[in-house]
């Protein structure tokens, strides 16, 4: 049924939808390290770039099945993140942000000068030989990413990340190995960014190192700040809005980026915590369905 639906959507709309999907994957990735663990990364486009170039090269040189290419792109990206994260995640706040920023610039310059990535000309990526159409693949990956992120939030692992975000000294005193959790969180985050980058490369068919500059990192950050830092539904909403906004504002031709900027400013003035910041979406849904989760849980305790 799904292939029939995807076939019936016109290519332009489909392109917007796929962009939204990739945006969601990237935003959720950044949510893990910045939203949940509280470590500001201003260089996440670097991991997207690593995923995009390794994915493209895997397809060009080896012709691996597409789903393996996606997996390996993510893994390569997360391995780089683990290696770079071990030293730099000792820094906090602004210092870490500057460090990630510098790292992203280095990656960009390296790719601009490597023979294998075709230097400044960029790479043309062939359409992957896959049983599933590209939009469907993206949809599946988006769903898996959402499930994975939501699972992480509601787990022992996620609680440790949130503890680190809120108070490192207290978290350490609760027996949480801060360095290890930060690196793991960074690696997962980079995995998602790498997967997003790989999908981006194959969907667009052409990548250039300059596509993954500082602005791309800021785009990703705007998505999660707009949606509400640390909120999974917020990241999905923020990514959807910001990926689609430039297209919907297209009728304003050259003024559209101006309006886009103004929209961001207004949203931050009226919802400084983001659109879904501080809203427990799961509880909201349960209440709409007539379940009262909090009072129900309380009743259970009273009987104990």
């Amino acid at each position, binding site marked *: 049924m799904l292939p029939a639906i995807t076939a019936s959507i016109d290519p332009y709309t489909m392109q917007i939808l796929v962009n939204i999907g990739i945006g969601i994957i990237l935003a959720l990735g950044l949510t893990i390290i910045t939203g949940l663990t509280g470590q500001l990364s201003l260089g996440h486009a670097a991991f997207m770039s690593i995923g995009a170039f390794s994915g493209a090269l895997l397809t060009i040189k080896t012709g691996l099945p597409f789903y393996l290419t996606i997996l390996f792109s993510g893994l390569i990206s997360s391995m780089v993140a683990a290696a770079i994260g071990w030293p730099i995640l000792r820094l906090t706040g602004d210092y870490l942000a500057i460090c990630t920023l510098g790292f992203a610039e280095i990656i960009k310059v390296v790719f601009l000068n490597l023979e294998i990535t075709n230097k400044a000309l960029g790479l043309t990526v062939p359409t992957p030989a896959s049983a599933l159409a590209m939009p469907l693949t993206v949809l599946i990956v988006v769903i898996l990413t959402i499930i*994975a992120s939501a*699972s*992480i939030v*509601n*787990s*022992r*692992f*996620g*609680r*440790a990340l*949130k*503890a680190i975000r*809120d*108070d490192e*000294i*207290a*978290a*350490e*005193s*609760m*027996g*949480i*190995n*801060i360095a290890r959790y930060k690196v*793991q969180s960074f690696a*997962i985050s980079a995995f998602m960014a790498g997967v997003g980058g790989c999908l981006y490369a194959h969907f667009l068919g052409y990548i250039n190192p300059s596509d993954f500059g500082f602005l791309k990192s800021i785009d990703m950050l705007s998505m999660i700040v707009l949606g509400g830092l640390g909120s999974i539904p917020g990241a999905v909403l923020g990514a959807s809005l910001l990926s689609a906004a430039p297209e919907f504002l297209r009728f304003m031709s050259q003024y559209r980026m101006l309006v886009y900027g103004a929209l961001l400013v207004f949203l931050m003035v009226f919802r400084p915590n983001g659109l879904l910041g501080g809203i427990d979406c799961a509880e909201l849904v349960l209440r709409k369905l007539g379940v009262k989760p*909090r009072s129900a*849980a*309380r009743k259970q*305790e*009273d009987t*104990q």
Partner: protein
Amino acid sequence: MSLLMLENTTIRFGGLVAVNSVSLEIHEGEILALIGPNGAGKSTIFNLITGIYPPTEGNISFKGKSIAGLSPSVIAAGGVARTFQNIRLFGEQTVLDNVLIGAHTRGNWDLTGALLQFLPSVRREEGRLLELAIHCLSQVGLARKAYEPACSLPYGEQRRLEIARALAIEPALLLLDEPAAGMNPHEKQTLLEMVRSIRDSGVTVFLVEHDMKFVMGISDRIAVLDYGSKIADGRPEEVRANPAVIEAYLGKGAAQ
């Protein structure tokens, strides 16, 4: 048997000797209070025990093994829990989540567990941690507030929540840094009974406190610190009569 032992422990911050060759023993199952004027180095001793600072000299051993120089998380996982003088709760998170974070070392499932939550063993562990957290909350009388954000609690309850969070480590040794600070007399009485019942449940308690009435009422032993050095150590009535202690608190004339 001594649970925790400080042997000639010293820490210097540049030229300042914050803790000067302190030797101290904490016996299993007792309530030991550490008192002393402001700036005597009481909280620094806690930070030394919990690994926030490594000692410059001397040794610290817990259950007979040296813990000097280990990281705070390793020491906590080994069974040393603490509260903080200036409350350090995870304010935006619920009361229950705070205690669940305290129960971190009681679980094993990590990232794989997070991604495979449907596995029965992951669910079992999560259920066990939840049970432990609720148990700790009811120990300090906060189970009813489990789903409220920690920052919305009144001050006294925040202090109790910190104790519950520390208890979730299921520690052998509980360090309380000024647990009664800012509490009214009624709350102090409740706290006193609470600390006693914690001790009776098998946890050794080591506390820093300024409130003398509280300290005298609760401690099995008292150690006194002045300018980084231990000047007395003994049962409450011995310490109260010790001339060196009276001098440190009230000045030279009072001791004669």
